[in-house]
């Protein structure tokens, strides 16, 4: 861990926290794809999302961690569970788990593994040699300044951010129209 960012209070986040969180994320991620019961998979996915939120905290990105918990663990996963509980679990658990396109999946995961390995091999040269100075105390304000800009000026990502929100709005309207035949 870079000692330069551990100024001020004594750091609680040691490398062991990273190992613990990463192990929790990987193990529960494996459980997600191996459990036959869909509810168990969903619960394991919640653990994965929470561990990733912990990893964000370790990377000094508290805002992203908070949003991860609210949106994914608290919102989306509850809807997942809501839908899964309406499915007949007993019938689903007897169905074949692996479908015919598994070679494509294998190919994709091999490609991803190759990407990870090459990133690991190149190592340091891929990443900036210094952590971007967004101290924890003003992290949220820093994100806001990037997204919305300082007073009177447009931010670095204002336009792209608004485009993304428009995309979401279209998706919401589409969902409403699809479920309601008559409006």
């Amino acid at each position, binding site marked *: 861990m870079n000692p330069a960012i551990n100024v001020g209070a004594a750091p609680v986040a040691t490398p062991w926290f990273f190992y613990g969180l990463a192990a929790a994320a990987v193990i529960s991620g494996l459980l997600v794809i191996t459990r036959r019961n869909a509810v168990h998979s969903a619960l394991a996915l919640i653990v994965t999302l929470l561990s990733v939120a912990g990893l964000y905290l370790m990377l000094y990105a508290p805002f992203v961690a908070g949003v991860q918990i609210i949106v994914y663990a608290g919102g989306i*996963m*509850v809807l997942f569970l809501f839908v899964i509980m309406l499915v007949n679990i007993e019938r689903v658990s007897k169905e074949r788990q692996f479908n015919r396109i598994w070679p494509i999946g294998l190919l994709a995961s091999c490609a991803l593994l190759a990407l990870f390995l090459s990133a690991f091999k190149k190592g340091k040269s891929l990443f900036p040699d210094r952590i971007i100075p967004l101290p924890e105390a003003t992290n949220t304000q820093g994100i806001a300044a990037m997204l919305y800009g300082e007073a009177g000026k447009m931010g670095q990502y204002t336009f792209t951010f608004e485009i993304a929100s428009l995309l979401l709005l279209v998706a919401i309207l589409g969902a409403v129209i699809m479920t309601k035949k008559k409006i």
Partner: protein
Amino acid sequence: MIDSFLSYLGSTVPPANAGNQLWVLIYVLIIFAAVSLTVMWLINWVERKALAHFQVRLGPMRVGPHGLLQPFADALKLMLKEDIIPDQADKAVFWFAPVIGLLAAFTVYIVIPFGPSQAVSDMNIGILFMLGVSSLGVLGIVTAGWASNSHYPLMGALRSSAQMVSYEVAMGLAVVSAILMTSLNPSGTGTLSMIGIVEAQQQQGIWFLFKFFPLGLIAFVIFAIAMVAETNRAPFDLPEAESELTAGFHTEYSGLRWSLFMLAEYAAMMAVSSIAVTMWLGGWLRPFPNLMHGPTWDFIFSLFPGLSFVAFAAFAFIGTVRMPKHSYFKIQTVGLGIFGLVLAFIALILLVISIGGYVAQAHATTGPSPTGLLKALATFNEGIGYVYWFLLKVTIFMYLFIWYRATWPRYRFDQLMKIGWKVMLPVSLGALIATAIVGVIVK
């Protein structure tokens, strides 16, 4: 260890921010013990007595004077009860569900600011963290309902998840409009930190409840309604509607595991009340800190904690005198008298501390700043004041929860959804936009 214990004393930041893990542990243990005891004993007793009096009954009267020890008898009963797990239940999930609810309810307490330094941690994302973690509580209910493998619990769980996801939206928007108000600080930037939000109200000299009247009030009312729905309390207690679903999501639970659900529910009620107090009612600030300041006013307001205990002690003594004069009631009478004496003793200590704080302040204005005992008394006096005003405001909310339960009939589920999406969401969105416009104009 003693070094790290002593080094934090007199610090002005929460222990997690000072990097003192020992004091973090102490604070966490104090909060856990205090919340558990308050929920198990005080709130349980007050709720049963208050509901009984609303319905012109006496409520618990047998175990202890005025049923004061009834909650302990109940807790013992629940612990000794057989713990039944249905045969067809998903055992692991069934076992873990109450723990999820409890974890979510208690984790939020680490950012609740009982005072400027009386919190476990002052997180930069405090309010986001609180909303996020308290929204995880629904997972406990949903998994409990599903794992029971029974129809009523499943219906309760489905209702609960739909209800909580709907009301979370209005709740979040109401909170955002209060956060917008923090950006009117002299420093010019808003904050998500719970301590920062209270300090913003202090700097702006107004509780956000009254800011931009009636915009702050509207946001507060939206939050106050949504938080009742979020905690599944009457009149929004459809997940456990006993006339339709037996007991809803916890129908199959018994004994200790059932009591964990109750503990989680009440802990969550206190947590959301603390959010409301922090965002709109000035958190730990006493009434009129800017208007009535100076040593005399400080002294008068610092007497309040002691005086409330004097009032409690007086109630206990009146009860002692009014006990029936029969030998059956002898033990109860003596017990209530001793309880009154304990309360009076606490009152005496608190009054001595507040007088000591006044003397220390008088010393500080005339001569060198006081040391030793006087300084300690002054520090205690301040801390007790903060915690007292915070808890007093939370207590009012807890009483409101009980009052609602006794007063209003339950909503139908379609009415509940209609209110959530068609009334609360547009109103809170409107209040948010209006707050933003007024804020820009004022700035």
